């Protein structure tokens, strides 16, 4: 067991899947000698060779085509799309092809591809680098979408994603890469691809969040605790599918819920969670479902992004409003 950053935990997970399965391949822009622009794949080309960890030409649709064709010839591809904003260039590959191919073959062929991609605001990147684009992918049948909020889950989820025979979109949060450390086991372990986790237990209100907003929700829960409001915090971890069982069990205890996301409010993951709760658990609620999300503008210019991204104060205020309803 060692203290590890989120990014090192991902590297460690990738190292283990490359070591265990000779059919796994890592490829993408700058992932080889450079180890990725964030160094997520650093050292892996030296260790496993250029046949297993290699650079691609600069074209995201080509990277997805490569992944699909490699699956057809028996490989287990782990392509990287350098920033989530660049997935638009690979939209047909991910949504039009990869997610549908198992179905098209009537289940006869597998496409065990894990598309890794960094996203998330707060690090003053150039445009199209920070956007939360999960909304486009969680509405895609056949594709799993996961995003860890801490180093332990980062390693366990990336291993599960690669070992899954279903295609998985693995979203890595830029702000979390080096801002948090956790105890992470050296040995291989997995975190299930379709389960949320209660990261703080509480009895008065449920805060449902994912990725960097989990930390904001935990900070809000600390503030609420000072006024004896006991908040339970749930980390979704999987955005498709959503683990409603974990959310519903919490609501049966707290009877109040706030759903939080960094993405714009419109048609987002939070809307799906809120509608599921409304459909299945409305009789268990003592207050309306609260939502915290970014406003519906285009992702903001970097200088103002921290005014735009929902933070712990926003969550605390909404939680108080719902708690006191």
């Amino acid at each position, binding site marked *: 067991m060692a203290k590890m950053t989120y990014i090192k935990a991902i590297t460690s997970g990738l190292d283990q899947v490359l070591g265990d399965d000779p059919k796994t391949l890592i490829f993408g822009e700058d992932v080889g000698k450079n180890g990725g622009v964030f160094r997520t794949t650093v050292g892996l080309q030296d260790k496993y060779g250029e046949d297993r960890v290699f650079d691609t030409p600069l074209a995201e649709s080509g990277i997805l*085509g490569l992944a699909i064709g490699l699956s*057809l010839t028996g490989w287990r591809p782990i392509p990287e799309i350098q920033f989530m904003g660049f997935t638009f260039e690979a939209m047909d590959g991910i949504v039009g092809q990869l997610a549908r191919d198992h179905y098209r073959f*009537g289940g006869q062929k597998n496409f065990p591809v894990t598309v890794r991609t960094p996203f998330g605001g707060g690090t003053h990147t150039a445009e199209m680098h920070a956007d939360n684009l999960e909304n486009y992918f969680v509405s895609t049948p056949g594709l*799993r979408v996961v995003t860890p909020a801490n180093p332990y889950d980062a390693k366990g989820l990336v291993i599960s994603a690669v070992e899954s025979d279903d295609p998985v979109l693995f979203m890595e949060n830029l702000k979390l890469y080096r801002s948090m450390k956790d105890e992470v086991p050296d040995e291989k372990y997995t975190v299930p691809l379709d389960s949320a986790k209660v990261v703080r237990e509480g009895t008065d209100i449920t805060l449902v969040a994912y990725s960097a907003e989990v930390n904001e929700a935990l900070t809000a829960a600390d503030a609420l605790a000072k006024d004896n409001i006991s908040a339970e915090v749930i980390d979704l971890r999987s955005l498709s599918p959503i683990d409603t069982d974990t959310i519903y069990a919490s609501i049966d205890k707290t009877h109040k819920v706030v759903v939080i996301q960094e993405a714009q409010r419109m048609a987002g993951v939070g809307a799906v969670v809120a509608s599921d709760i409304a459909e299945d658990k409305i009789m268990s609620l003592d207050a309306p479902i609260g939502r915290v999300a970014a406003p519906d503008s285009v992702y903001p210019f970097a200088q103002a992004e921290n005014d735009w991204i929902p933070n712990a104060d926003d969550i605390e205020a909404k939680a108080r409003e719902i708690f006191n309803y």
Partner: protein
Amino acid sequence: MANGSKQIVDFAKIKATMADPYKHPVQVIDREGKVVDPDTLAKYSDDQLVDFMKKMVWERTLHEQTMNFSRQGRLGFYAPTAGEEASEMGSVTAFKKQDFLLPAYRDLPQMIQHGTTVAKGFLWSKGHVEGNQHENPNMMFPQIIIGAQYVETAGVALGIKKNGDEDRVAFVYTGDGGTSQGDWYEGVNFTSAYQAPAVFFVQNNGWAISVPRYKQTAAETLAQKAVAMGVPSVQVDGMDIVAVHEVSKAAREFAAAGNGPVVIETLTYRYGAHSSAGDDPSRYRTDEETKPWFDADPLIRMRKVLTDKGVWSQDQEDKLVEEYKDEFKSAMKEAEAAPAQKVSDFLKWTYNVPTPAVKKQIAEFEAKESK
């Protein structure tokens, strides 16, 4: 020059000559049925040439029978292939069963030759999953998104190279319009960057639905596009099955030997509509334009060569057509006897491991379906 002084670079000359290496289509038999390359033709036995002719008659008959079935409402989407027999049969016969085929929607005849049945082709057209399940596993389903098969070919070819498979390549088809897609360039370029074994066919049939070839690009040939990716390419008379086969065989050998990919532009023609779904070519082309192509028909010229050799007769051809028609009619019966599809199965195939919501929906549909 505008001011009479000599410019440092003569762009006009570059532009005027850049297509020169590419605009000499390979030909063995010309449109009149005259053998223009007897040495190449001599490499083929009479039996082989007769087999080429049979395959073209087979494809033409398949097309005609398929149009009949379409008119009877017994098929779904179908892309007519008449006119492209030499291009399609000449190319696919140059490949081996272990080669991986990535077809588009006009390539059902090549798929059947490569290892599926006519009945499966009909099932694909009718919208039945069994139409995507082939005896030869070295095959993708017909790609609908133009260009996607090109980028996927890069992956298949790289996979073949990484597996160390000997004597194996990927081969793929698109049309003239397909060369305008970004994926076309990405696919050829990735394959070239990795020097992976693939043969890329561009069946230039003159039309992307209603848009003529010359409106797709100012490039004089489509073959020349490959030079930008460091890939050798050639134009071939796509109405001459011997030329297409000979070029395809050479391309396969070159790619399989580890030299990287090849691009082949076959000059052919789409006699019919883009698809059976309501396209009317009289809206965008005239008989005057199409006549020269009908005169260049691949069957006419091969028929002449074989008749001159005394190894083919109209009687023989008429009998074959009847045999093929019977074959296609029983294939249609087989397709029509395929089991009804169930939504619960669609849900089961969406994921390997169904999500909780999908599990619930499977149960709901199974309950409905058992009633």
